[in-house]
């Protein structure tokens, strides 16, 4: 059985019908547990209670990037293989990504107030996220502006490709432009040394929760889109008949 089978709308609806309740349940549990656990962690000796923000900030920031990558892949599948569900999945993912970016930006900005004494600083990490947010907004705006769905899918696909290249390019340009204040990645290679276990496990849980939340929302939104398309197609047929 090939993975492409799931790109068939009917098959997709059937499969997700069974999958969705489990996914929603798991996402709800992991999200709540991760965030609540995070909220209950002890204060950090340097950052005080603000360290609790990390359990929202980091998962959101991670998802913000990963969702764009997922959109890129979905767009490529649409452009190369013309699987309609894939294009709709990219469309459905964009608002989730935008909200995740917004959460990362908002929590970061709120965090910055006590830590750096300012709401906003033109730090490269922050700046890259602002640019990413702009790409999300542009992508969503283009989807909603183009009336013909075939054209909209193609145009946003092209925009996603070009945008990805430029998002990367901007990242390097921004690094060149300003060296920042933001901490580096602590969970990467030698994670154990930089962050204590007290914070690590709830953070992992919150990240898993955000990921599951994304998956659940993505499936629901894709199903919404599929139903809308189906309705539009049926109505158009009747009108022409």
């Amino acid at each position, binding site marked *: 059985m090939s993975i492409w089978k799931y790109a068939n709308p009917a098959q997709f609806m059937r499969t997700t019908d069974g999958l969705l309740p489990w996914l929603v349940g798991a996402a709800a549990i992991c999200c709540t547990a991760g*965030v609540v656990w995070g*909220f*209950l962690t002890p*204060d950090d000796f340097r950052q*005080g*209670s*603000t360290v*609790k*923000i990390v359990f*929202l*900030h980091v998962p*959101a920031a991670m998802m913000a990037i990963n969702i764009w990558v997922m959109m890129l892949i979905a767009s490529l599948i649409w452009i190369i293989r013309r699987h309609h569900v894939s294009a709709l999945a990219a469309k459905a993912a964009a*608002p*989730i990504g935008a*909200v995740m970016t*917004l*959460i990362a930006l*908002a*929590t970061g900005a*709120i*965090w910055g*107030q*006590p830590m750096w004494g300012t709401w906003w600083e033109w730090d490269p990490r922050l700046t890259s996220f602002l640019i990413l947010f702009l790409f999300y907004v542009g992508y969503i705006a283009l989807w909603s502006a183009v009336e013909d769905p075939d054209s909209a899918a193609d145009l946003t696909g092209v925009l996603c490709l070009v945008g990805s290249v430029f998002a990367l390019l901007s990242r390097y340009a921004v690094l060149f432009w300003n060296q920042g204040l933001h901490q580096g990645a602590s969970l990467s290679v030698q994670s154990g040394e930089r962050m204590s276990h007290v914070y690590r496990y709830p953070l992992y849980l919150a990240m898993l929760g955000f990921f599951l*939340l994304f998956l659940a*929302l993505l499936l*629901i*939104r894709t*199903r*919404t*889109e599929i*139903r*809308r398309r*189906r*309705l539009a197609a*049926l*109505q158009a047929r*009747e009108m022409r008949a």
Partner: protein
Amino acid sequence: MIDLGRYATTVLMAYGVSIALIVGLVWQTVAANARARRALEEHDRHG
């Protein structure tokens, strides 16, 4: 109630904003989904 110290507003604001955004997104998603499903069922019944 746990003590958040002098950063209470900061932490609560961060949680508040994030949860509001997530709830908003979830609500919009679910509402739109319900609307689409109802519209389609409506159509199947009458059309």
